[in-house]
């Protein structure tokens, strides 16, 4: 750990911002085509973020500000942990548990700031977001535990390295199809895309936690959203789609997976939050247990 690491980390953040925001912009275009319209410019997302940042804003006390800073800080820190193909800013920190728990800092910060605004819609949104987290994280983690048991590693780059060299069929997604399905369903929940986006449902709770944000706070939350999307999709790409031997390979896989998830979300309405919990604890959890037991007792697909 020296100064170069931090410089790399900073460059990584800049790169991720540019990359992910472009992908989001392109996906807005894809979504528009699905809805039979032209859609915005591909760089619209950049304009939106910078516009929000250029406006004035209001604050509801120090926790409202601090929460946003903590959220963005936590998410940026988590982004630094993620390897892009073979490139890592820091060695030995891409442990899946560190990533997923550090991600929670961001969530908590945002939740705190949202509740700190004193708006009940925001609190309802936060309560839904946390419930949603309880729903999607548990099946995913059960799956991850069985993977760690099988592969004796818990780092993202470790998982990716084990899948490389065997072609597409070497990817965990194809070696463990049940697990792959669980992972994609959970990814949809992590990304907060439909049908699991009840925590920002505009028609129900007026965009939930975002209710009171404007100006720089909103801009930072948009940044946060880009980074957290990057983290979540990257986790799945590393664990299930073989990461990338080169950064380019990783980026291509990433873009395809994200676009795929986005298209899925275009044709679904949203679950109510308790329906989402029920769904996750019925289908993906059961599948995750089945996959886990298969891995642990039969070792099918491991070697």
């Amino acid at each position, binding site marked *: 750990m020296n100064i170069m690491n931090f410089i790399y980390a900073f460059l990584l953040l800049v790169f991720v911002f540019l990359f992910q925001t472009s992908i989001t912009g392109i996906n807005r275009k894809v979504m528009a085509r699905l809805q039979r319209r032209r859609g915005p410019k591909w760089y619209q997302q950049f304009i939106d973020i910078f516009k929000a940042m250029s406006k004035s804003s209001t*604050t509801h006390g120090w926790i409202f500000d601090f929460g946003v800073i903590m959220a963005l800080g936590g998410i940026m820190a988590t982004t630094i942990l993620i390897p892009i193909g073979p490139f890592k800013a820091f060695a030995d920190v891409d442990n899946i548990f560190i990533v997923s728990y*550090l991600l929670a800092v961001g969530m908590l910060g945002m939740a705190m700031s949202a509740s700190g605004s004193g*708006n009940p819609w925001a609190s309802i949104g936060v309560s839904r977001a946390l419930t949603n987290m309880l729903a999607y994280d548990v099946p995913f983690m059960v799956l991850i535990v069985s993977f*760690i048991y099988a592969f004796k590693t818990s780092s993202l780059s470790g998982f990716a390295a084990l899948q490389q060299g065997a072609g597409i069929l070497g990817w965990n997604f194809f070696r463990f199809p049940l697990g792959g399905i669980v992972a994609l369903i959970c990814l949809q929940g992590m990304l907060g895309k439909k049908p699991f986006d009840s925590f920002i449902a505009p028609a129900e709770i007026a965009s939930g936690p975002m209710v009171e944000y404007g100006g720089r706070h909103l801009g930072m939350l948009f940044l946060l959203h880009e980074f957290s999307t990057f983290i979540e999709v990257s986790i799945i790409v590393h664990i299930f789609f073989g990461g990338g031997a080169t950064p380019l390979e990783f980026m291509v896989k990433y873009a395809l997976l994200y676009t795929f998830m986005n298209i899925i979300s275009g044709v679904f309405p949203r679950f109510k939050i308790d329906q989402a919990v029920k769904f996750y604890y019925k289908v993906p959890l059961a599948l995750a247990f089945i996959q886990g037991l298969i891995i642990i007792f039969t070792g099918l697909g491991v070697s």
Partner: protein
Amino acid sequence: MDFNALILFMVFSAVLSYLVSKSNIKLGAYSTILFSLISLIILFLGRNNIGNEFSLLYMNFRVTAIGWYFSLIMILIYSMTAFFNPYWMEKILYPSSYNFLYLFSLAATVGLFFAADLITLFIFWEVVVWSSTFIVPLGKSRKAAVVYFTISSIGSMATLFAIMFVYSKSGTFDINEAFKFLASEPLTATFVFFTFITAGLTKIGIFPFHIWLPLAHGNAPHTFSPVLSGGLVKMGAFIAYLSVGILPAYKAFSTSMTIMGIPFQIYLLMVLGAISIVVGTLMAIKQDDVKKLIAYSSVANGGYILIGILMMDQVTFAGSLMHIFNHAIASAAAFLTIAAIAHRTKTTKISELGGMIHKMPVSYVVYLISIISLAGIPPMGGFVSKWLIVQGLASKGLIFIAFAAFFGSIGSFLYVFRPLAGLFLGQLAPKYENIKPSTLVMKIPMVILASMSVFFGIFPKYLLETIGEIQTSIGIDPIMINGDTITTINGVLNTNKVAAIFGFGFVISLMIFLVLPKSRKVGLMDTYTSAEFIYTPELYHYANSFYAPFERLYKNHPSVEKFLGKFAVKTEELGILVNSLFFSHKPSVTVLWVMAIATLIFLGGVDI
């Protein structure tokens, strides 16, 4: 200094504090702070005593590394909580007895951890149970004390039975010697194992013995709840350690059926631990009273601790021991902040409060840090211990236990956030507009505990090295720690690096925030109201039934409390029946009895 003197000092300080309190209540309360702090210093400096044996009256003591570790946690919690005592003296019915029992139970716990024979262990155990039983009803409810005592006695009796049974077989009370014979007798070992550990299970609050925790923690005086949750519960962990570490459980059960390499007897208890995590989490999520909420969270965390201790391996055991420490300080800090708030607002109900952050910012920060630690989020101490436990479970492939661990871990975000949103954040009710922040004396322990949470999250080596020594002393591989890098089979964790990265991210984020245009401060009620007008902050504060949709999913769950409630009613009825049959003054009942006995004699043809 010799620990012989330490125990004597602690007992005498209890008496002294009683006498001081008799003359001046406030002074007596301050004396508890002084005495417990002195004990803490003596214990901390007397680390070189480890390995010493000594006896006092007829009781034998042995200073072990693990005993020292547990004692340190216990005295730390007691001394920190003692800072709150002066503010509760007028609210407690018998303040001088409270001060006496407070220090006396502390002395007894230290004695318990250093006990060299089973009788000493049991005596001190009973002393703690009795003294704490007398403290609990000084709060709100006598029922709580009854339930607490009943459950504790179930545990004590089972343990006493185990002790006597072991003595009858081996002929010695010495902890290290008494259990040795069990290694070759798996069946007896199973029996002893289950009876002996019962006391531990009741004390940690493992399902189905968890019902006393919310009652006792929720109703005990606000100053004693931190001790109950942070301190006394950990005695159970010590018993659990004795049951697997000293009682050669793994050796004895080596021939029995195993599940993923764990003997089924131990696995069974781990499942109980897992159930405690799930039940504790679910129940904590729906509590409206913050103290009960933290009490249920203690149930859940007790599950983690039990699972880790039962594993008796390199990683999980270390994680569990560390979690005992982290949970103790975090839970105590959380309870202390609640006590500080209750001191001003006279309530601990989330739905009656709100917006406290604007009045008590220090309490808020302390609470925030402690719940982040409880939830296991970096860079706090709780993260390291949970990481170790989860890594250990993953390396063994125990997915069902791991499921519970993750459920509890993510569920804890839910329940720790509930007081945060409902009590500290949100709208400030006009009736709390004029309350004052907590006093300086109250802030001292809260800040100390919170900074310890942060410190051991970033530099866990100071704790893990001690834990490594404990592991070496009981004959398992010590946790691998090099600098601040913790290495397990499946991964490495460098907390320094994580903290540095977190700090780096935070700084960048802060810089972005500062560069952007300034914000304008507006009031809390100047908020989005769908463009309608509202002027009542109480009506615009979402705190009641915070997780209503989720709570509804398990509203009709089967409950141990309900079952036991029914059981209690039946027992009472039986008691009335027995009473009327045996202790009646009516002649007819007596005649009935005489006839019944006579009939039995005739039928049986027994010679009397």
